[in-house]
């Protein structure tokens, strides 16, 4: 017989108390598309599951002070269907659209994808590129954390035992801003990234980049935010020289592993190629030239 307990608290306070008071392993449940697989395989044996989906505000999308706030447990499919997010953050939307299957997207959440802390998580490079802020709640109250400070190693996060993410704040979008995400896999659907790349840019009226964030997935123990690569884009149009420098910076940031999906050399090379392609899509979208899907 299992001693697994389950609770579906209806307030942040109750959820935090349950997590803080647990003597064994307590896991936060959102969509469960990673957690249930890990439990079933025996990799994780939690004593308590705290299902956060009944907490007010944790599911849903709203606009606040000109930016979007996405509830941490909102299913990917709900984000994908949101017209405002498709317009302002097409890269984040297309990243979610690449996670697993239609069935998985019906359950999976941004918080789960981030806190599962896989280096190959599809929505995470897009979240990093977006400059999203995670609103973290715990016994000591509420704190706002840049998303890139949440994952610390494969399967590990900076969250304390009694903490979980309530929602994500996306920054206000200046004019001529957009983003894109591409993932390379050896097939068309239902695979894990060999490399993923998310880029968000803002352009001025002349098409010169004034702000950029560049992120790579599956090339290091955690998803990476590439300050060097972003600095290369700022102050430039997407000319051949800038693209070459971006490619080199992306490759230089890679610290990948060899595995069945790709060698170190292959992943490094693909990271540079994807950075070029994603930058081109993000620049085009920011300039209003294209709003189509990248994949």
């Amino acid at each position, binding site marked *: 017989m*299992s001693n697994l307990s*389950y609770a579906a608290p209806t307030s942040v306070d109750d959820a935090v108390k349950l997590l803080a008071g647990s003597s064994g392993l307590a896991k936060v449940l959102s969509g469960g598309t990673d957690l249930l697989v890990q439990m079933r395989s025996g990799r994780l044996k939690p004593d308590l599951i705290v299902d956060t*989906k009944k907490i007010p505000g944790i599911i849903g999308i709203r606009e606040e002070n000109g930016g979007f706030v996405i509830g941490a447990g909102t299913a990917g499919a709900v984000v994908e269907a949101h017209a405002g997010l498709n317009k302002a953050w097409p890269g984040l939307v297309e990243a979610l659209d690449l996670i697993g*299957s*239609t*069935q998985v997207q019906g359950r999976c959440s941004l918080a789960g994808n981030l806190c599962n802390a896989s280096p190959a998580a599809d929505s995470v490079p897009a979240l990093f590129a977006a400059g999203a802020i995670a609103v973290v709640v715990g016994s000591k109250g509420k704190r706002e954390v840049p998303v890139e400070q949440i994952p610390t190693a494969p399967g590990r996060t900076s969250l304390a035992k009694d903490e979980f993410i309530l929602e994500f704040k996306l920054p206000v979008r200046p004019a001529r801003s957009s983003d894109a995400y591409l993932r390379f896999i050896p097939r068309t659907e239902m695979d894990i990234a060999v490399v993923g790349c998310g880029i968000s840019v803002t352009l001025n009226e002349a098409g010169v980049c004034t702000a950029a964030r560049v992120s790579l997935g599956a090339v290091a123990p955690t998803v990476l935010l590439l300050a060097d690569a972003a600095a290369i884009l700022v102050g430039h149009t997407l000319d051949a020289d800038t693209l070459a420098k971006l490619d080199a910076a992306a490759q230089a940031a890679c610290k990948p592993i060899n595995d069945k999906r790709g060698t170190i050399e292959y992943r490094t090379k693909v990271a540079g190629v994807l950075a070029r392609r994603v930058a081109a899509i993000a620049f085009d979208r920011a300039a209003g030239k294209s709003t189509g899907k990248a994949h």
Partner: protein
Amino acid sequence: MAKQYVSATINGEQSEFLCETQQSMLDVLRDVIGLTGAKEGCGSGDCGACSIILDGRLVCSCLMLGVEANGTTITTIEGIAQGDKLHPIQQKFLEHAALQCGFCTPGLIVATKALLDENPNPTETEARYWLAGNLCRCTGYDKVIRAVMDAAAVMRGEAA
């Protein structure tokens, strides 16, 4: 640990059941409620054989705990036909021979129902991407897609 009490609407009927905390919704459907149409292929969300519609969204019942069903509305393959009358999707799967062993078929039909509820006029590409999470070892998918597109046309009133 005491069993969990769960109340949900399943195929239009109010249903109450007790389950262990760690039991998946798929285990509950098959072993507790006796609805064995949903199949377990992989148990890890890869194959789609356990597909159900949960509060209007297509999900894998193996990636959901039975206790999470409390207060929800669920459609399984058993809820697709109208009494003895096959749903057009089921009819077209038969007519196009879109199955051989049939293990994936309940999942494919439920997934197709969810697709056509959301998008009554999908392109073939949209249908193929939507169904990418439903694996079939027999058909090679082509007959499945023909059945889906034909069923969509019937449901739109454009074919018989």
